[in-house]
C-alpha cells in the first residue's frame, strides 16, 4: 500500500505527536506530509498523488470551528467533496480520499483514524491495477 497523509501544523500534526509519544501503532504504509492547514492542500496535489500511484490520500485537520486559520478546514471539506466527484468519474473509488479531524490532544483518535483508513484501503486493494486494455468483442476488430 502507498498512502499519503496530509497533517495540518496545529492540530493533527500535534495529534500524531501524541500518538507517537504513546507508541500507538501506525501502519508503515502511510507517509505524512506536513502543511500549515488542511485548507492548504491543493486539489491538484491530491490528484497528483493518485496519478503518482497513491492507493489512498488522507487529509487530517482541526475540528470544524477550531481551525487555527478560522475556516480552512471548511474550505478543505468542500474541496474534498468535489475531488471525490472527479475521482469517481476517473474510476478511482472516492473512498480513497479521506478527510477527518483530530485535535492536538487526540493522539489515540489520531492512531485510530489512521488505522481505520489503512484497513479500508487494504480492503479496496491497490489503486494502480494494470490498465485493462479493452479486449475487442471480436478478434481483429478496430
Amino acid at each position: 500500500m502507498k498512502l499519503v497523509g496530509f497533517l495540518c501544523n496545529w492540530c493533527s500534526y500535534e495529534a500524531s505527536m501524541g500518538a507517537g509519544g504513546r507508541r500507538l501503532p501506525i501502519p508503515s504504509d502511510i507517509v505524512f506530509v506536513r502543511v500549515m492547514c488542511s485548507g492548504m492542500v491543493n486539489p491538484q496535489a491530491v490528484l497528483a498523488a493518485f496519478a503518482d500511484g497513491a492507493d489512498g490520500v488522507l487529509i487530517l485537520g482541526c475540528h470544524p470551528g477550531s481551525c487555527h486559520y478560522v475556516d480552512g478546514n471548511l474550505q478543505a471539506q468542500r474541496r474534498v467533496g468535489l475531488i471525490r466527484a472527479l475521482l469517481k468519474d476517473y474510476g478511482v473509488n472516492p473512498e480513497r480520499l479521506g478527510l477527518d479531524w483530530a485535535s492536538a490532544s487526540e493522539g489515540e483518535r489520531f492512531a485510530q483514524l489512521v488505522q481505520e483508513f489503512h484497513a479500508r484501503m487494504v480492503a479496496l486493494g491497490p489503486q494502480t491495477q494494470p490498465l485493462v486494455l479493452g479486449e475487442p468483442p471480436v478478434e481483429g476488430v478496430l
Partner: protein
Amino acid sequence: MNGKPKLALYWACSCGGCDVALLDTGAKILELAGRYEIVLWPILVDAKEHSVEGMADASIDLCLFNGAIKNENDERMARLLRAKSKVLVSLGACSQLGGVLGLANLTRTAEMLETVYLKAPGLDNPEGTLPMKRTKVPEGELGLPGLLEKVRGLPAVVPVDYVVPGCPPEPARLVEVIDALLAGNLPPKGAVLGASEKALCSTCTRQRRGLKVERFTRRYRLDAPDENLCFLEQGLLCLGPVTRSGCGEACLKSNMPCRGCYGPTSGVLDAGGAMVGVLASLMAQDSPEAVAEAVAGLDDPAGMNYLFSVASSLLREAR
C-alpha cells in the same frame, strides 16, 4: 520544386473545424499559400500521405498539425511529420490537449464499439457487424488503422515547437499567428501563440458580487441568466478561471458560460483540480452532508471540468 519553403497541414482525429478556421482567415490564407509550397493538406490539396515518407528529414519548414492522436495512423503521421518538419505547430484543442475526443479516455474502446455498433437505440445492425482492421472484399483486402486504447494530444507523442489553442482557434488569432509566421517573428520555441497568458476572467466584463452558491445548475435550466453577473456566482459552471483568454468571448457574450476550449493557462496542472479551488470558494455549504448534496447537483463533473483536457489531465484516463 520552386524554391519556396514547404508547408504541411495535417488533420489527425479531427472534426475539420481547425481547417475551416484557417479558411475563415480569408485573404490571409491565400498569403500563406502564396508564400509556401503546400506539400500536404488532406482537406484541400491532392498530395498523398505516402509522399511525406519520401521527403528528407527536416525538409518541411512548417507543419500545422490539428486533431488528436486516436488511431495507429494518427500516431504514425505524428512521428513522421515531426521527423520531416523543422517547426511543428500543434493547432487547436484536440492537438494540444486531446480535446473533446479525450472524453473517450473515461471509457473503454470495447465499450465504445459495442455502444456505437451494437447497442445504441435506433441501430439497424442485425448481423452485429463491427469495423475490422482487415476486411476481404471481392477486389482484395481493405485495411483500417486500429484504434489506440487512449486518446493523446500531439505533445504526448512527439516534441512540439508551438501551440495555437482553441476549438477552433479564432480566425482573428490565426491571422496574427500567420502574420508572425510570415514575418519570421516567432517567440522562442515552446511558446503558446494566439492566446493570452492570463485566464478569461482577465477580459471578462461580468461582475463578481461575492454571492455564494446554494446549488449548481445548468444553462438550459435558466431562461435568462443575469448578463452582468459572473456565471459562477449564478451556480453555472464556467471554466473561465482556468482557461486562456484570446477567444474574444463569443460564448460569454451570448450569455453562455465558458467551456474551456482555449485550454488551461500555463500555471494550471489539472483543469478539474484547479476548478475545484474556485467552486469550493463559492459554495455556501459547511457540513459534509450539505457539501455532498451540493456536489451531487453537478452534472458529469469530469466531463464538464475536463471537456477539452481529459487526455492532458493528471489522471489522464479512467481506471
